[in-house]
C-alpha cells in the first residue's frame, strides 16, 4: 500500500487538517450567517470609532495635530456625534487630502 515518508505524512496531515477546518467553517457559515461575522475581523480591530475616540487616541494617530484633534472633539461635543465621515470636512483644517487619510482611520457607529 501507500508508503509515506515522515515529511509526506506531515504535509498530508496539515493539508487534510486544513481542508477539514475549511469544510467545518464553510458548513457553519452556510447554516448561520452570524458565524461569518465571527470569522472575519470586526471593523473595531482595524479602525477607531470616531464617536468614541478620545483626544489622546486621536493625537496618537499622528494624522492630526493636538490642536486639530481638539477641534474634532469639540465638533463632536457640539453636534453630539458624527453621523457621516464626510462631516470631518466641515472642521477647519481638514481638506480633501487630510480627509482621504482620516477616512482610512475611522468608522462611525
Amino acid at each position, binding site marked *: 500500500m501507500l508508503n509515506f*515518508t515522515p*515529511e*509526506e505524512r*506531515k*504535509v498530508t496531515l*496539515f*493539508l487534510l487538517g*486544513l*481542508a477539514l*477546518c*475549511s*469544510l467545518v*467553517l*464553510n458548513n457553519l*457559515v452556510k447554516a448561520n450567517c452570524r458565524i461569518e461575522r*465571527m*470569522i*472575519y*475581523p*470586526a*471593523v473595531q*480591530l*482595524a*479602525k*477607531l470609532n470616531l464617536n468614541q475616540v478620545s483626544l489622546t487616541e486621536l493625537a*496618537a*494617530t499622528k*494624522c492630526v495635530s493636538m490642536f486639530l484633534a481638539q477641534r474634532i472633539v469639540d465638533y463632536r461635543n457640539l453636534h453630539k456625534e458624527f453621523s457621516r465621515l464626510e462631516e470631518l470636512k466641515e472642521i477647519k483644517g481638514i481638506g480633501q*487630502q487630510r480627509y*482621504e*487619510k482620516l477616512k*482610512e*482611520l475611522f468608522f462611525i457607529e
Partner: protein
Amino acid sequence: MKRPLVILVVFYGAGIILANLIRINFWIIMPIAIVVFAAANIWGRRNRIFLTLVLFLALLIGYLNMRNSWILSSCHVRKFISYQDGSLYSLNGFVASQPEFKNNHLWFILRARQIQSNNIRYKCCGEILVKMDFEQALNYGDNLTLMGNLVRPPGFGLRQSYRDFLARQGIYLIMPIKDQRQIIRQENSRGRGLIRGCFWLRVYLEQMINRYLPPLPASILAAMVLGQKRNLPWLVNNSMVKSGTVHILVVSGFNVGIVAFMVNLLLKILRFPRKARIILTAICLLIYCLITGATNPVMRATVMGLILLVAYLLKRQPDIYNSLMSAALFILAINPRQIFDVGFQLSFVSVFAIAYLYPKLKALIHPEVWRINILKFIVEGCLVSLSAWLGTLVIIALNFRMIAPITVLANILIVPLATLITLCGFTLVLSGLIYPDLAHLFSLPTAALITLLLNINAVLIKFPFAYIYF
C-alpha cells in the same frame, strides 16, 4: 579563537561608528591602513601581533568604507542641483522600485541617467524619490523623462529624520510631480529581468490574496507573507507595536525559515536528490528575498539561510554566531550606514540575544528534564521570547520610548498562531495558482486565524501595564 568572524565584524562595526564620531579625511587614514596591511603581512607568523594588526585593519576598513559612502561620485544627480534655486529640471531614467500608492501619492525610486537644466544636458547617476499626486500604471524598469523641481527631503531637525532615513538608502532628492504633463514615457524599458519578474510575481500574489480574502485579513496576510504593508491599517500596526509582536508583520527570518522548510519538504516529497534540493531551496530563498523587497531582516535571514544550506551541502556543522556575523558583514560592506538603521539593529540584536541568552536561561531552569511536554514547550517558548525581549529592550526604549512587558506573553500566544497563518497563507496562494475553488475554501480558516490573532492582541494590550510610554 573559535569565532574569528564575530570579532572581525565587531571591529569593522566599531570603525563605522568611529567614522560617524570623528571625521578625519579619507586620504589620511588610507596610508595608515596600507601600512597596517603591510605590517600584518610581515609579522604574519607571530600570532598575537598578527591578530592585533588584523583587528586594527578591520577597524580602519570600517572607517574608510563609511567615509567613502559619504563621498558621492562626480556624476551623482545631487551634484547638479543647487537647493535654493527652484529651477526646473528634466530628468531621464528608469523606475528602480515597484511604485507604491501610499497616503494618496504614488511613490517610486527613479535611477537617473541624464539631467537637463537650462537647455544643457549632462549624463548623471544616482537615485531620486518621485512623489506623484495621481495614480499612473508604472512598473519597474519603465523608462521615463520627468520634469519638475528637485527638493531635499524634510529634516525637521530631528535626530532620526526622514532625510537621514533616505540618505542611508542613497537618496538625497525628491521630485514632486503634480501634473500628468510632467511625465514622458519612453518606449524602451530598462532594469534587470530577474527583478522585473520578481516584482511582477509580488503584484500577482498580492492580487491573489486580495481576491480570496476581505480587505483587512488580506492586508495582514500580504504583510506577513509578502512584506507588503501598504494596505495595513494604522490601528493594527500600532496595536502590534504595543504588544511587541509587530515583527510578525515584517518578512524576517521567521518567514524565510518557513519558505525554506516548505520548499525543502516539497522537493523531498518529489524525490529530488539531496544536492538538487539544497540548490533549488537556495534559489527559492533568493527569489523570495527579491519578491519581499530585500529589506534588512530578509537579507539577514537569507544570508544566514544560505550559509546553513552550504554547511548542510558540505556536511559541516553551521555556527549561528558566524553565520549571523557573515550576514551583518554582507549588509555593512554594501552599505555601512545601515548600522544606524533601527531595523538593522533590532534584527541582529534579537537573533544574537536568542542565540546567547536562551541557552543560559535554559540552563537555569532545565525544562528538558520535565515530563510534561506541553509545559516544556510553553516554558521554552517563554525563554526564547524573554531572550529576544531582553536583547532588544534598550534599542526599543531609546528609539520608540516604550517598554512593553506584555511582549513575552504576547509572543508565546501570537507566534505559533502567526506560523499557522503563514502556512495557511502559502497554501492559499499555491492552491489559488492551481485550483481557485480550493483557495476559496482555504480562505475561511486563514481569515478565522487572523481574526483570532487580532482579538488576542487586542485583549493583551488592554492588560494593566501591558506597555508603558515614557
